[in-house]
Every structure is written in C-alpha cells, then in structure tokens.
C-alpha cells in the first residue's frame, strides 16, 4: 500500500488536515474561533478513526470514532462555549509568542517529527509511518500551543489537541486494542473537569483567567 492507492491517500489526507488545523489553532487569536477549530479537529479525528476502521476491517475503531466525535467534536466544545459565555471571554487574547515566530517554530517541529519518525520506522508499512509522523507533529504543536498561550482555556485546548495527536497515532497502528482509546478519552474528560474547576477557581479569586496574574502571588515578578 503506497502513494496513489485510495486507503493510503485518504488516511494521509485526513492526517494532513488535522495537522493543518493544529496550525490554525496555533495562530488563532479569538477564543471562540479556537474552540471551533478544535471541534473541527475532533471531527476530522473521528473521520480518520472511522476510515482506519474501514480499511483495517476493525469494527472497534468505529466505536473509537464515535467516542471521538461525541467527545471532541460535540461535548467538549459545547462545554467550552458555555464556559466562555459564563466567563465573558469573547475578546481576543494576545499569545505570549508572536504569530510569525510560532508558525516558524511549528514548521521546525514538523520537520523534526518527520526526521525522527521516518528513519525509525523504515521497514514497516508506509501508512503507519506517515501517520505516525503526522501524529507526532500534532502532539508537538499541541505542546507548543500550551506554552505560547497565556489564557488558561487556550492552554486546556492545547492539551486536548495534543491528546488528539495521540489518538491519531493509536488508530493508525493495526491491531491496537480499544482499551487505549477508551482510557484516553476518559482521561481527557477528567482533565476537562479538572481544568474547568481550575478555571473557575481562578475566576472566583482573581476575576480573570490569565495565568500571568498568578505569578505575583507566588512572590515573583512576571
């Protein structure tokens, strides 16, 4: 199965689309737009999982796709939107790193992921190789988003985008048991709860969700 065959091309297309959405997440300034992009990424992830289920003939991946769709594309974005409305966060937030530098850093990270993954997996099936490189790129971009944003909600989105990359890697490998997806999905729900509580706590105490405001309270200058 190589370039030019349908299963490979579609999987590649979906993975590439997720990576593209990761870049969108990276430069998006509006909070609501970020959540929308994240929902789109969740939907693509679900599509990728379903496609893999179809190609590999593994029906459990349809379940994964359903969970991913329900959680990533519907429930979590919905929760985040409610959160934004209640916290009144409909304004643009400045990232800590400018758009240009973060884009360059993102491209460098993708190059690094490809440099690392392709030689390691030489000899295994091409579909797994490309998928793994794309997934590692999504993971790294998610981490980059976490450190370039000051807003707590956007950091949470970065964490979940990172987790999307993990699931993309998991579904790309044939024969991966379902347990992983279930547990990771549950983990993300839990993380969301924790992060939500965290955000409310900040809101209650300091009337803002900018984590930079925490810093003076630790006895330091930001």
């Amino acid at each position, binding site marked *: 199965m190589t370039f030019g065959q349908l299963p490979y091309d579609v999987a590649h297309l979906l993975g590439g689309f997720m990576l593209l959405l990761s870049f969108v997440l990276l430069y998006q300034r509006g909070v609501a737009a970020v959540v929308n992009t994240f929902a789109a990424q969740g939907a693509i992830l679900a599509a990728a999982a379903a496609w893999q289920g179809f190609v590999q003939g593994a029906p459990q991946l349809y379940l994964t796709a359903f969970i991913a769709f329900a959680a990533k594309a519907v429930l979590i974005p919905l929760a985040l939107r409610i959160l934004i409305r209640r916290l009144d966060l409909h304004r643009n937030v400045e990232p*800590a790193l400018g758009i240009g530098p973060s884009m360059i850093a993102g491209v460098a*990270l993708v190059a*690094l*992921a490809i*440099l*690392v993954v392709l*030689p*390691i997996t030489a000899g295994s099936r091409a579909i797994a190789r490309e998928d793994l490189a794309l997934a590692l790129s999504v993971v*790294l971009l998610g*981490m*980059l988003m*976490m*450190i370039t944003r*000051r807003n707590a909600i956007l950091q949470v989105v970065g964490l979940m985008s990172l987790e999307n990359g993990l699931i993309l890697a998991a579904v790309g490998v044939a024969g991966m048991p379902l347990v992983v997806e279930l547990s990771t999905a549950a983990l993300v729900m839990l993380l969301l709860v924790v992060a939500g509580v965290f955000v409310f706590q900040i809101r209650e105490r300091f009337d803002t969700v900018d*984590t*930079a405001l*925490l*810093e003076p309270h*630790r*006895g*330091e200058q*930001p």
Partner: protein
Amino acid sequence: MLTGLAAGVAALLLLALAALPLGRLPFVGRMVHGGCLAVCLWLAGVALAVLLGGEAPTPLVLPVGPPWGAALLALDGLSAWFLLLLGLVGAAASLSGMGAEAPPSLPAFPLFLAGMVLSLGAGDGFTLLFGFELMSFASWALVAARHEQAENRAAARLYLIFALAAGAALVPAFGLLAAHAGGASFALLRAAPPEGWLAAAVLLLGLIGAGAKAGLVPLHAWLPLAHPAAPSHVSALMSGAMTKVALYVLARLLLDLCGPAQPSWWGLPLIALGALSALLGALRANLEDDTKTLLACSTIENIGVITLGLGLVLAFRGADLGGLAALAAAAALLHAMTHGVFKTLLFLSAGAVLHAAGSRRIDRLGGLIHAMPATAACALVGVAAAASLPPLSGFASEWLLLQALLAGWRVQEIGFQVAAAAATAIAAMAAALAAAAMLRLYGLVFLGRPRSPRGAGAHEVQGPEAWALWLPAGLTVLFGLFPGVLAQLAAPAVQALAGAAARPPGGWWLLQTGEGGAGYRPLAIALLLGLVVLGLWLWRRQVAPGGAQRGPVWNCGFIDPPPHLPFGDPFTQPTAGGIAQPLRRMLGVPLFAAREAVEMPRPGETRAARYEAGFQDPSLPLLLAPIARAREALAAQAERLRDLTIRRNLSLAFGLLVGLLALLAWLEAR
C-alpha cells in the same frame, strides 16, 4: 563450590531478615553474630577449596537478576583470595560482636557481609556493583547506628557522600566497558579490552570509584571519621575487609577486565596515589590522639602500599617483565591479606580497650599491660606486624614490595625509573613512620602508668570478645612464619593479575624473589630471636638469682606526687601530643599545615600561658571545600527553578522533549 557461595549469601540474607523483627530481644544479637561467624568460616573454607582445587569452570546463573542478562556467580583465584580474607576477618569480627551488646542496627551487619561476599563472588558487572552498593549502604547504616552524637552524624553523612561518589564513578566505568563489549559478564568484558579514550576513562573512573571506597588519598577524608564512629567489630570489618573489597574491584577492573595488553604508564597513577597515601596516612597516624582514628590513618597507609603494588604489576606487565609482575602481585596480595588480619586484630584490641578502660583517647589510657595482659599480648603481635617487624606477617609482604620496587630500574623508560626510585624512598619512609606510629600507640596505651582513674580501673575483657583476639593474633604469627606457603596459596590470584605463566615467589621455608635472588627465611629469624631471648633470660637468671624485684617507677626527677594524685602527677608522663611534636614540626608543617601558637600572659597578668597545636588534612581545603562551594553554587542555581512561571515550567519540559527528539534524529542520521 559456587553453590556453597550462594548458600552463604542466602544464609546471610536470612540472618538479616531474622534480625529485622527480633533485633530487640537480648539473645538475638549473639545468635545473629554467631550465625555470621559460622557463615564466614564456611566461606573461608569455600575460598580455600577454590585456591587449592582450582576454580569452577562455569559461572553459576542465579535465578534472580536484571532483565537484560542473568546475574552470575563465579570464583576465580583472585576473588577466592579476597574471599578467604573476608572469611577470616569476618569470623573474628563476628566472634567479637557476639560479646558486645547488640547494636540498634543489627540487621545491617549480615547485610554488610552479604554485600561484600556478593561483590567478591560476582561473575558479571551488575552483580559486582549490586554487592558493592549493598556493602556501602549497609556499612553506612552501621556507621550511623549511634547517631545521637553529632560527630557520628557528620561522619555518616560524609561517608554516605563518598560511598555515593564511588558508586557514581564505578557504574559508568562498568557501563562503558559493557557497552563496548556488548554484555556485562566478565568473560565478555575480558574478550573486548578497551582502547584509547575509553581505556583512559575506565582508568580514571575506576581509580575514583574504588579509591573513594578504599580510602586512597585524596579521597580518604571519610576514613578517619567513619572508623571511630562505628562499633569496634564493625570498624575491624570495614578496615580489614571492606577496603580490601574496594581494592579487589580496582584490581579486577584495571588488571583483569581491561586485558593484559594495557600500556606500562597505566601503573604510574596507581604508584603515585599509592605512595602519597602511604606517606600521608603514616604521618597522620603519628599525629592523631584517638586510638581508632590512628588505626584508620594506618589503614590509609597500608591501602597505599597495596595500591603501589598493584601499580607495579601494571607497569611490569606492560613492559613484559612477567617475573617481576608476579613478584609485585604477590606482594600486593600478601599485604592485603596480612594487613586485613592484623588491622582486624588492632581494631578489636582497641575495642577491648575502649570497653575495659572506657576511652579511645590515648591521653586517658596507659599502663594497661598490667590490667589486661592477654589483650596487651595480642595487641603487641598486631602492633609489631603493623610496624613490619620480622618475623611477623607485615614484614614479609612489605619486604616483597620493597624488593619489587627496587627492581623498578628494569623498566626501560627513564621516567618510570625515576618514579620507581622516588616511590621506593617514600614507601621506606612510610614504613618507618608507621613503625613510629605503632610504637607511640603501644607505648602510650599499654606501657607507663594509668592517666585517668577510669583507665586505672580497667579489667581484662571476657568471653567472645577476648577469644576473638586470639584468632587474628594466631594468624598473624602463622602468616609471619610461613609467608612462602601463603604466597604459594595465592598462586591462582597472582596468575590472574600477572599472567598465566607467573610463578609466585616462595616455598615452604623461605620467600625468594626469584632464582638466585634475595631470600627471606622467617623461621631462621624467629629461631635467632628465640635464641637471643633465651640467652637474655638465662643471663638474667645468672646475674639475679633471687628473681626480679619490683620497685617504684622513676619519675624523671620530679618530686613525688601529692596524695590527691594516686596515679602520679600527669605531667610526669608524656602525652600523645608531646610525642607527636617532633614529627609534627618536621613533616607536619609542609604536609598538614601544622600550626603551633604560644600565648604568653603579659607581665602582671595572672592567667596561665596557653599553648595550642593542631593540623589540618590537606584534602579538606583542597578537595572538600571547593566541592562544597560548587554544591552551594549549584543549589543556588537550582533554587531559581522553583520560581519559574507555569509557562516556563511547561517550556522546560517541552524543550527537553524537543532536545531528546533532536538527539534521536541526530543519532539516526549518523
């Protein structure tokens, strides 16, 4: 035989396990130490069987081990020789421990023994390091057992730091070798000797790792503190056996596993460090005024002497002088054995004195030969051996070593010849200084008059504590009278160090450096000495037929002491500091920064004049102080990490991940 070794280790571990819940019961200390005694004797028998009957052909694979390879047990000549030493020293120390009250850290004692046995009986690098670390930590627990006193806590802390440093150097040394050879078993390591920078790194790391545990200068700062802090039978075991295990690791790593083809200059660092240790240790032993600290400093001296011998083996072997390499190897091995035994004897004697006379300070002891005649006789044997007087065991090994050093000119390079000549001078000086230190120790502790009421009320020790002195004392005399037999017994170990063709010097009656070379006949010397003593005795009978009369001690012309000083005026007896003064002024000023200050009262002032004298070990300002400063600076830097923001913390983790991935990509590209 390997099964016997494994059974010994298992028995020691079981004893430690049994001591854990039962340690508070009164009879358990005696039981555990008795068990250790039996196991030690058994292990000595196993070692003797290997030395006499040849080593087991295949290593024993243990059912437990690391995931990447099995743990192996193996005994060859070298390890069997050190195991024999461990068995003898351990037996004496355990016997003495039966007499003492059970310390709070009872389970650590069998663990300490088990660690040493495992380290000696290891057939691969991992097992050796595991045993070594077990030994380090168990002995740390024993040193820290009496942690109520601040000085013991400080000693234990310093000891732990040095033990960790030793592990931190030995693990990469074995790791580098194992990565180079593709496995950690000794057979694999031997088949792939390191070269170039790898060999140099292994040499450096091995010297640091084994040297820190053995007490080689400049890594000796812990030794004079840790030995007095531990109970006496533990100090005996640490000084007699543990430092030798470290030397075994040094010999195994540098002389065996790195292959016989290493260049001649490899011996030079060992010779230099050994000579320095011998000199500094012997000199410091002359200045200390605590019996166990003094003995610990003497241990530094002897470790230096043995390391010097190992360095000579490397140098001679690299220069294709097989006979001389065998001579040096026999000297080093013999000295390891004899020093292990007589230092055990001396530490146990110091323990008996501490128990009976209540002090370790020389200035509070004195005249104990009257109150403790048996201990005094045993200690005399040990002191004479430590002063390398013939016909005792210390002389035979030091004589062999000096013979090997005197043959140093046979190596072609002029630089080595000069170094060997200098090392000879230093070794001879160290031997003389050691003799002076031992004379001072024995004279002040056992001769003269008591210096304190507690010392005057001393009584002879009883039971196992007294019996434990006779085992090493008898062995010291035996080894001294038959060093040739001992050298023959060491033949497999000598061959492991100096090459398979090596023949150890010696036979039944004499110790000879080679065909037609110099020889030493201890029995003849003993006979001559006996004849002289007999003649003196007969002569005394003749001139004084009525027998000896005891009279008052001549007090150097001082007036008689007042009645409130029943033991005599303390000022009429020399003190430890007083005897040390000439050497402190001659050699202590350049080497130990010794200082003296007299503070006279001004005219008309009524206070007394003060005289202060002291010295400082050079490793404190030159090694420990810079390390402590570096630690402070590092800690201050690390403290700044605590003040990072959430984003910076995340960035740190992210940066580390990206860095690792980049490293991976770079490694793949190569």
